[in-house]
């Protein structure tokens, strides 16, 4: 059990060898294997940081977020939040936990009950968790609305009557009524127009300061992650392949997958990706992963050794970790 201790600041969340496997069944409902959505993930999140989790479809970042949150029950491993073990709690125990650990959905509109007025959706968490009177709850709701820059008249509207960006704010507001300490943001900018995106990101930063939040920022949009996150974890097929401070990883990625991922991002004003992009093929079938390193089938640096053992996340220098036995300092 490896614990990823970082620079000594307060660790708010610690995950150890967390796995979530989904059984694959054939037409006769017989189990034929496992889909290892996340496999042996270990991570520590510092209080007050924004940790980015990036990767492409099928890498498991969304499953990771949901498993930490308790939406999925982990197959194995531990989740330690604010000093207490939270993996596999029963529903009433985990309910109390919800006040401190929260989650935003990719599609904010669908996370709101379409038949409930927004005011009621915002009131619900307070009703569940607190004994405040109706007036006191209303006060808190107004406070939060103000913090997310939404007008009070929205309380009387239904979700479909407001825009996507506003729905996102309502979703955020609803979580914040509980004053959580850690918020998992799952694809917080997906589907947003570029001009709206900036406003929402600014809002995240404001709220972080105001409510003293820590974020886990799950996204496939690397340019946004580069701007927002202090540290970044890169996932591929259920495992973390690289972890470290954002700028350092972007400037000198060590894992070949990270390198290809970063080099795929168009950079306006720079050279064109399409000229030099080298990664070919597609990720292998996640239910039938290659032996050893799952990236080796597409990796230009692979050797025989790569097929023999599954690489683990190793601390190279300072706060940089990667899972490649040929980890290089720079890629030319």
């Amino acid at each position, binding site marked *: 059990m490896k614990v990823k201790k970082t620079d000594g600041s307060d660790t708010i969340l610690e995950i150890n060898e967390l796995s979530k496997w989904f059984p694959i069944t054939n037409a006769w409902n017989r189990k034929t294997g496992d889909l290892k959505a996340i496999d042996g993930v270990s991570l520590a999140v510092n209080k007050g940081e924004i940790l980015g989790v990036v990767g492409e479809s099928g890498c498991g970042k969304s499953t990771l977020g949901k498993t930490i949150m308790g*939406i999925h029950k982990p197959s194995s491993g531990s989740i330690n939040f604010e000093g207490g073990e939270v993996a596999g709690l029963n529903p009433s125990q985990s*309910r109390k936990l919800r006040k401190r650990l*929260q989650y935003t959905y990719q599609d904010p509109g*669908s*996370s709101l*009950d379409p*038949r409930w007025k927004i005011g009621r959706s915002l009131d*619900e968490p307070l009703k*569940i968790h607190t004994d405040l009177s109706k007036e006191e709850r209303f006060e808190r709701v107004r406070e939060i609305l103000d913090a997310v820059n939404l007008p009070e008249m929205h309380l009387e509207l*239904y979700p479909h009557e407001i825009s996507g960006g506003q729905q996102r704010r309502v979703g955020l507001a609803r979580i914040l009524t509980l004053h959580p300490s850690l918020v998992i943001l799952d694809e917080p900018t997906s589907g947003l127009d570029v001009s709206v995106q900036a406003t929402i990101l600014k809002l995240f930063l404001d709220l972080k300061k105001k409510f003293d939040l820590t974020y886990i920022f799950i996204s496939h949009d690397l340019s946004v992650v580069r701007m927002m996150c202090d540290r970044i974890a890169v996932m591929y097929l259920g495992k973390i392949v690289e972890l470290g401070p954002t700028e350092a990883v972007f400037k000198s990625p060590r894992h070949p997958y990270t390198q290809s991922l970063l080099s795929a991002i168009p950079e306006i004003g720079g050279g064109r990706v399409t000229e030099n992009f080298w990664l070919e093929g597609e990720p292998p079938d996640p239910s039938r992963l290659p032996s050893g390193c799952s990236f080796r089938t597409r990796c230009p640096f692979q050797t025989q050794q790569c097929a023999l053992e599954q690489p683990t996340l190793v601390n190279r220098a300072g706060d940089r970790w990667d899972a490649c036995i040929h980890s290089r300092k720079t890629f030319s």
Partner: protein
Amino acid sequence: MFESAKFIISKLAKDRTSLVGACLIAGLILIALFAPLLAPYPQDVTEFHPPERLLGPSMSHFFGTDRMGSDIFSRMLFGARITIAIAVIAIGVSVLIGVPIGLIAGYNKNWISDGLMRVSDIFLAVPQIILAIAIAQTLGPSIENVILALSATYWPFWARLVYAETRSALTETYVEASIALGASPFRVMVFHVLPNISSSIIVRTTIGMGGTILTAAALGFLGLGPPAPSPEWGRTIAESREFLPEAWWYATAPGVAIFLVVMGFNLFGDGLRDILDPRTRRSHDG
């Protein structure tokens, strides 16, 4: 887009077929309420005048007279009361039993839910009318037993419907979000799932009324419903059998009454479904 009552009413008003259905239903209700005032011979529900038996339709007797000489038109109007009572109570009771069972079975994923659903399956495997006949036959012909028979055979339908809808509603993101916020199962079922499946239930109720009325009339026809001299429509048709085809008005009146009422509910229910059922709603975006 939204299902406030005003919106629904305005949409319904634009759809001609459901308007027809609504009028028929409204007609039924009004007749049932004001039968004593509308019937030219209200006393004929219980009285009889043998000398006037089996007279054809005329100005004084719109639908003629029956074998006891009573005015069929007036008896039909009172029969409407029985029909409504049976339909409303039977459906009401079966909904009140079936919906909570369906909710509980849908929310849990254990032996409780399996057990409840197997019980419903057993009930549903037997044709409703056969089961209803068996129950009514055992208990004896009366209006209460008809209602009992209908409720007992209809609740599994609601349980199964609500079970399926609950299962699907539980996969909705907003339900997941509520649970993530700490909502208890009760809160989720009653305040989130139920309102969102309510339109399904309402639509099926309306359409189900038609079928229930038909089954009730069938039971009445078989003699299992309220006994003579009740003006129940099915019973009247049964009575008329020995006098056909000469006294054609005797069977036609109740037959037409049943037809109009059932069609009314079906048309209205269809219109309601077109508005409330998201799957058949036409989308105007994009």
